[in-house]
């Protein structure tokens, strides 16, 4: 564990990607093979199954630290991370340990069938033989949520430096459904069999937000414009008479969308389609809210299947007849995709995402403005001559999102931020008018400058009405413009609505309190866009 903790510190101590890559590459060269494999797994979001609940961890940590549970809970939001909070409050270790990362993981996994006393003794024993950084790492193994400032891309680059294998090749090898139990360093990294894992997806190509006038992109005829659909990006793989559906986050979602299974009978083996999973009925997409109940569950009850039927809105063709299509230009891939879909019976849950016709950029600007009316988030612009790249790359793909919805709201509650922002009030609750009452309807955390957060923090302290634990109610006075991407009905909220991605965009110091928006305004937005 010491070797891994050293790596963790080295990564933590620098902002420079070059230094991080070098530290990781050195680790991949000299750490034990099992540890390397687990490190790759951890950095790509795979963690050992949780064998201890965080409730227990908190209780045991407080007990070991000799502090009451409330004090532990008071520390947590200041640190902003449970694993770190525990590492910090514990008394210094009295012993040392030579166990490696994978050996400690084995210790944790063995707790699966253990009784509570054994679990407690094991965890307390571990804490007593690990240094502060090792403890943090150990706790992270239990709680998950690794953020080591290492992207998958950076890790792949380091792995490439250490092994001499090309980055793109490694990216592909690391995708898919492996775990450190099913794979070894040799099978995963060194001697992979390209046919071994039929389910393995291609890395998704991700677009940047358009940050310039579209005229700068050149001729509109060099581009394909499509709707940016508000569903779940997915990659459908049909190989070996099976089908697999991957999310962008490398989640295998196959069983959640059984409708798509029938496609195996209609499309040739060796077909891979990039598209958007949408709830869809009566020839039009349903709102994201309708799709949501289907995301959380592994299997789908019949009723839900009927209420929110899904389709795959196809964007791109990555493999056809077992051939990797990605190096070919989009125009060619798209033509092949259109032909393939045109030949299918019309009631199959697969559609071609229609091209938005345009003879000039102004046509597209107008089409973009209508996005919300047809349930889209904006437009996607893709260069017709471009290959399908891996990851987020600038130049050939752009998302041109519609402007967010906005509403002017009154600040009524404030709460201090976590960790780095523990000394500032950064978490706010906002309300709209309902007659003479203010009805809370959303929280927002981001969008102000540090100077503005400082200003509002000073104001909150002077204008607190009441304290409820960490939350303060404040004199209604300040109006903020809140931007959000969508609105949906929510019986759990007093206001009856829930917003998607709310954030503060402007502190409306110019706006008097009574000119903030009303609950009726919100309801009207819900009727229009919900």
């Amino acid at each position, binding site marked *: 564990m010491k070797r891994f903790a050293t790596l963790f510190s080295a990564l*933590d*101590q*620098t*902002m*420079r990607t070059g230094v991080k890559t070098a530290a990781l590459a050195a680790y991949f060269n000299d750490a034990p093979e099992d540890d390397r494999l687990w490190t790759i797994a951890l950095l790509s979001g795979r963690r050992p199954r949780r064998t201890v609940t965080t409730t227990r961890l908190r209780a045991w940590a407080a007990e070991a*630290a000799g*502090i*009451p549970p*409330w*004090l*532990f809970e*008071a*520390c947590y939001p*200041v*640190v*902003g*991370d449970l694993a*770190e*909070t525990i590492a*910090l*409050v514990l008394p210094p270790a009295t012993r040392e340990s030579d166990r490696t990362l994978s050996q400690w993981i084995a210790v944790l996994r063995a707790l699966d069938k253990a009784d509570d006393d054994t679990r407690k003794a094991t965890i307390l024993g571990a804490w007593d033989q690990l240094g502060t950084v090792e403890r*943090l790492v150990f706790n992270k193994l239990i709680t998950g949520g690794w953020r080591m*400032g290492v992207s998958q891309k950076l890790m792949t680059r380091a792995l490439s430096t250490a092994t001499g294998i090309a980055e793109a090749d490694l990216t592909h090898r690391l995708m898919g459904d492996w775990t450190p139990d099913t794979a070894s360093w040799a099978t995963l990294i060194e001697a992979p069999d390209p046919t071994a894992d039929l389910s393995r997806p291609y890395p998704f190509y991700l677009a940047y937000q358009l940050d310039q006038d579209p005229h700068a992109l050149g001729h509109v005829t060099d581009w394909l414009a499509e709707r940016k659909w508000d569903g779940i990006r997915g990659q459908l793989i049909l190989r070996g008479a099976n089908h697999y559906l991957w999310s962008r986050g490398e989640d295998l979602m196959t069983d959640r969308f059984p409708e798509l299974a029938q496609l195996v009978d209609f499309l040739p083996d060796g077909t891979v389609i990039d598209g958007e999973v949408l709830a869809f009925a009566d020839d039009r997409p349903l709102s994201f809210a309708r799709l949501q109940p289907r995301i959380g569950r592994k299997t789908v009850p019949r009723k839900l299947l009927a209420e929110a039927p899904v389709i795959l809105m196809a964007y791109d063709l990555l493999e056809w007849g077992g051939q990797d299509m990605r190096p070919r230009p989009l125009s060619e891939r798209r033509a092949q995709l259109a032909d393939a879909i045109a030949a299918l019976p019309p009631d199959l849950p697969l559609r071609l995402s229609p091209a938005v016709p345009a003879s000039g950029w102004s046509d597209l600007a107008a089409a973009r403005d209508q996005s919300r009316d047809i349930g889209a988030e904006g437009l996607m612009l893709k260069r017709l001559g471009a290959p399908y790249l891996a990851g987020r790359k600038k130049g050939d793909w752009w998302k041109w999102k519609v402007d967010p919805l906005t509403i002017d709201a009154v600040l009524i509650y404030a709460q201090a931020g*976590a*960790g*780095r*922002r*523990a*000394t*500032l009030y950064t978490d706010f609750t906002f309300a709209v008018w309902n007659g003479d009452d203010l009805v809370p309807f959303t929280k927002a955390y981001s969008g102000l400058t*540090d100077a503005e957060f*400082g200003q509002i923090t000073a104001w909150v*302290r*002077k204008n607190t009405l009441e304290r409820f634990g960490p939350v303060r109610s404040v004199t209604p006075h300040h109006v903020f413009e809140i931007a959000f991407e969508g609105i949906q009905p929510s019986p759990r909220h007093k206001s009856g609505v829930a917003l998607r991605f709310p954030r503060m965009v402007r502190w409306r110091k110019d706006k008097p309190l009574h000119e903030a928006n009303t609950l009726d305004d919100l309801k009207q937005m819900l009727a229009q866009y919900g």
Partner: protein
Amino acid sequence: MVLRFTPSGIYCPAGDFYIDPWRPVDRALITHGHADHARPGNAAYLATPSAAPVMRHRLGDIALETISFGETRQIGDATVSFHPAGHVPGSAQIRVAVKGEVWVASGDYKTVDDGLSEPFAPVRCHTFITESTFGLPIYNWPDQTALASQINAWWAATAANGQTAVLGVYALGKAQRVLRLLDTAIGPILTHGAIEATNAVLRGQGLSLPATIPVTPDLDPKSHPRALVLAPPSALGTPWMRRFGPVSTGLASGWMALRGIRRRRAADRGFIISDHADWAGLNSAVAATGAERVFVTHGYTNHFSRWLTEQGYDAGIVETAFGGERLDADEDMTK
């Protein structure tokens, strides 16, 4: 009440004076020279002789009387004395006794001997007003020797890379404490103007510090390879830094104990070194006073006072609407 909490600060009715007032008053007793404790505009000041030079340097021509550590002085019906707080050179806790009832206002303090400040000395009292800048059990300072070797190892590695090490430290106290921890065999030490000015004041009162080279406009950093630069945290990331070429940056503060803050500050390294007491320090200091009543100010007031209440103290919060909730200037790295 021997001391009262008023909008102008801590007030003693029996002696008609204030301790570290926030607004200008007739008579101010000052615990130490940090900006959030020694403010301009008071008609008369009282502080220790070793705190006085910095106060004069910062506040100019003020009516300042000094009182030695342990010396007692009668002010009205109050008996006053100053006792070492171990925070920075000259920093004091102020003891006020009226008719046999004793209160102590801690100011800022730390219980670890930094080798520079007069070491903290507990003072028995009935009521103790304690700071709580780091009043949560997540703050436990590492051993100072280990810390010195961390800083020196970073400096040496940075120098070996052909880079300049720039360490952000508060000008009064932290800078001089760090200076004494540095291994001058590694290379020369350069100082930002704000830090050199304070160094000069402290050298003037007899403190010995290693040799430093002030960074002036005509100084060529290239003629001082392997250097470590001490600068106020606010100078990091400004154009002032350009002259040093490739740098590795560090910050020295108690807040560096938290990974989130370390990362947010975007310095390459964070060193956990504070001039305030950590969790254990605060608890041992409170216990050593023998006080039954404790008022908590300056930091995690709610949590620390609740904790003390559960430990059997009659603990309260110094209401913070007057500005006491602000972080200390010397530790305010989170801005």
